[in-house]
């Protein structure tokens, strides 16, 4: 067994937390809160490790003559500037907020906006690439719910027949979404149990 200590930790901690949910004892609840608090800290540290790793990658790209990437310089500058400023002034300082509202938000929103064009182009070419009844049904559903989501049918001018049709149309994705939700929940349950039984060890090297 690879990394038996880590496996034992995962199983032991997980079982304690799970038992605290099933048996609401004060002692177990206290232990659970302690573990959850430690998990929050570790999650933050893990995020920090990820960021530092990203920084090191770009730092190497600047220094490496083979894979030199001058654009990484913008990453380094932006990272150092924001991190230092955020740590010195505080991340919610009024002088820092424009970095979010005037840099992060417009760029991120623009990227999302670009996705519109990508999605449309993909949908237009979909049937030409995959001619099947499921593709046709998918595209038909997309068109219908684009129209429904646009709100053009939410007027009094809409005939009662269309209203009924829209009502039924709204039910159909709800049924499928419920099935998908249940499938995801079952998958989560199974994955969690496999971790607690030591069958899955995503923490191993």
């Amino acid at each position, binding site marked *: 067994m690879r990394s038996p200590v880590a496996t034992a930790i995962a199983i032991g901690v997980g079982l304690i937390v799970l038992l605290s949910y099933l048996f609401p004892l004060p002692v177990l609840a206290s232990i659970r809160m302690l573990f959850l608090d430690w998990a929050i800290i570790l999650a933050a540290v893990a995020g920090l490790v990820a960021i530092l790793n990203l920084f090191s990658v770009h730092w190497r790209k600047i220094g490496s003559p083979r894979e030199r990437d001058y654009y990484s310089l913008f990453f380094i500058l932006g990272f150092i500037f924001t991190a230092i400023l955020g740590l010195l002034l505080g991340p919610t300082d009024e002088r820092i907020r424009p970095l979010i509202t005037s840099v992060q938000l417009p760029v991120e929103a623009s990227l999302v906006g670009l996705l519109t*064009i990508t999605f449309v182009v993909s949908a237009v070419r979909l049937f*030409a690439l995959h001619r099947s009844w499921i593709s046709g049904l998918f595209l038909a559903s997309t068109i219908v719910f684009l129209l429904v*989501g646009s709100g053009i049918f939410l007027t009094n001018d809409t005939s009662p027949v269309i209203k009924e049709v829209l009502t039924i149309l709204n039910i159909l994705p709800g049924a499928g979404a419920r099935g998908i939700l249940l499938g995801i929940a079952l998958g989560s349950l199974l994955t969690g149990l496999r971790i607690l039984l030591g069958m899955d060890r995503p923490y191993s090297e």
Partner: protein
Amino acid sequence: MNTVVCPQCGSSNPDKNEFCQWCYAPLHPESTSGFGGSESASIDLPDWLKEAGPLPPSPTEASDEELPDWLLSLRQASETSDFGEEIQPTSGEESFLTPDLEKILSADKDEETETLTQPEPLAQEDLTEWISRLQGEEATEEAPFAAESTPLTGQSEEELPEWLKALREQEEPPVPETYVVEGEATSPLPEPEPFVAESLPEWLKDLSTLSEEGKEAETLPTEEVAQGPEVEEAGLITPEAIPPFTEIPENITAWFEETPASIFENRSSGVYESTPTPEEFTPTTELPPTDEIPEESPEVIPAFSEEDYAAWLDHLKIEETLEEGNLAAQIPAFVDNGIAETAPSPETIVPPFIESELPEWLAEAESPAEGAESGVTPAAQLPEWLEAMRPVEAVAPTPPHAEEEDTRIETSGPLAGFQGVLPGEPEALRYSRPPIHAVRLNVSEKQRAYAALLESLVTAESTPTPLRVQKQVTAPSPILRLAITIVLFAILITGWASATPPSALPTLFPAEAVAFATTINNLSAQHPAPRVLVGLDIDAGFLPEIHTATINTLSDLMRQDARLVFLPLQSNAPVLGLAMAQEAAQQIPGYALSEQSVHLGYLAGETTGLAAFAYQPRLGMATTLEGQPAWDTQPLIGVNSLQDFDAILLITDSGERARGWIEQLRPLFSERPFLVISSAQAAPYLAPYVQSEQINGMLTGLLGSILYTRLTPKVGGENLALWSAYQWGSLTIALLILLGALAGATQALFQAQKSRSKR
């Protein structure tokens, strides 16, 4: 390199060879242990006896008093025979060498060759007493121990195989005595001639020659006889070259006379550990007169001391007890092992000696032999010089070929009963028809089904399945992409600029939107100054989509003097929450934002953090964004659990993250409204939670903003420019997708027609 001429075939061999590389005959007299080497020790005479064969009898035989009892009995038995009467009884005052023997021994070496080539049988009178007795015993067919100790001759006449009987008839008169030597447990079983010629020790051959009065000499191959001079030239003395006792030429007698007693001493003291060189046998020194040799001189006698006799006889006795029996004594060495297993049972074996007649030393030797019956063969007590003379194979702890020993017993042919011989008949002749087995397996239906399944599995695995040819997905044409971009941008800008949506503003409202607006606007009716937990789980990129709905909702809550607790779960959510709260508060002038609202710190760990906050909010998030103790602020005074909040408002752009909120918080917050403002992309995902009433009200996207504005009329709440662009854009995209699908279908039809026309 020195070469040695083979006395057998006359070919030259390297000096180091012990056996002729052409005929495998022994090149040196010392190595004439036969093919069996050490294996034949049980039947071959001991080496000392081979060497002593031509030598004069030991002084122990000089007088009857010194003879052992058994030998005396034998002698007496021979004296009673007819033939024995012709032999002069041994006198006690006989010298070591009789005059006849002295005459023989005094002959020249050259004459020895003559004797070999033309064996001249000596008269019985010329023989010494013991030789004549020996000869007499052998010549007569009534050797007492031969008759007593040969179960095969006596009892097994009927048991003998046919081939053996035939041989006996051919060889009349049988001469089993020829092979009998005093002291040896022998069997007069007649052996086929080849065995006699090839494997018997030479001195035995000589004895047989003696017994047949030169008859054997006539049958000797001329080649063997003719090699005498060659041997002489080579200076070698081989057993073949040594004449039998009865034929000891005078030159040998002379040689014995001239040989000093020290030679005999050396023989007993281990000089023969090394192969004797011809020089040792060369009479280079003058032998003292025979009468000068003391009769009982220990220096002379020990060549055949009693211990030595005991040793080799002991060895023989052991083997005898091991039921190799009398037959073994006559059997060539290479079949010795076979005899050991095919010998008759001890009950049927008549011992060669009556127990009472056995000498003491021989009786003592029986004890280890008895032990051998239990499977433990005691080591023979050989004198040092005899041990040293043993071939290497005899000394080796395990014969190299012992493991490969053929245990198969010949069942037919002239070698029937022997072990380890080459098969007398080809194996193919023993072929018997193989048994016939049923080809059909006795299997049940279930087993057959499993077998069929297994076969299908194996077949399926080995059957090549055609790979699905993946259509190469090429990047979309830049022209198509640019065209769509231009069309879309043009429509959006036109719609935005015209601010004229294709349809009227919504007058029909989805239930979840109505529930949302109703719940928000009635919170104060149920809970004065309602305490609302606002979850900020949104990326900045999707904020524009729900920005309007969020601002309107927050302002409505502020209007109700709600105490707002913001809990961010995304890194940029704290700033976005602060910005939206300030923007909403601007619409409600009397609302004390700093007092009525608190921004908790960033909650890391997503689902784990939510679980901690859900069960113990004070421990889950203890500080504000500014790092101050959160639970001492005015909005959170009196809040100890999640249920102390009057409502939860989640602002999210992700259905997956919204699921985490619902799963972790909703079970502990089941009695209070849970409201969601989500992006349009999360709406279908969250629809089941709306139907299950885990979400009590929901606004999605820009449509949700318009709907909420329509439901809670506000001045300037409807951004017609955006709404118009949105509707036009939606319709355009739907149309583009439809056109794309139609184009794909048309292309498919054309391809089908084209393929049909090609056919």
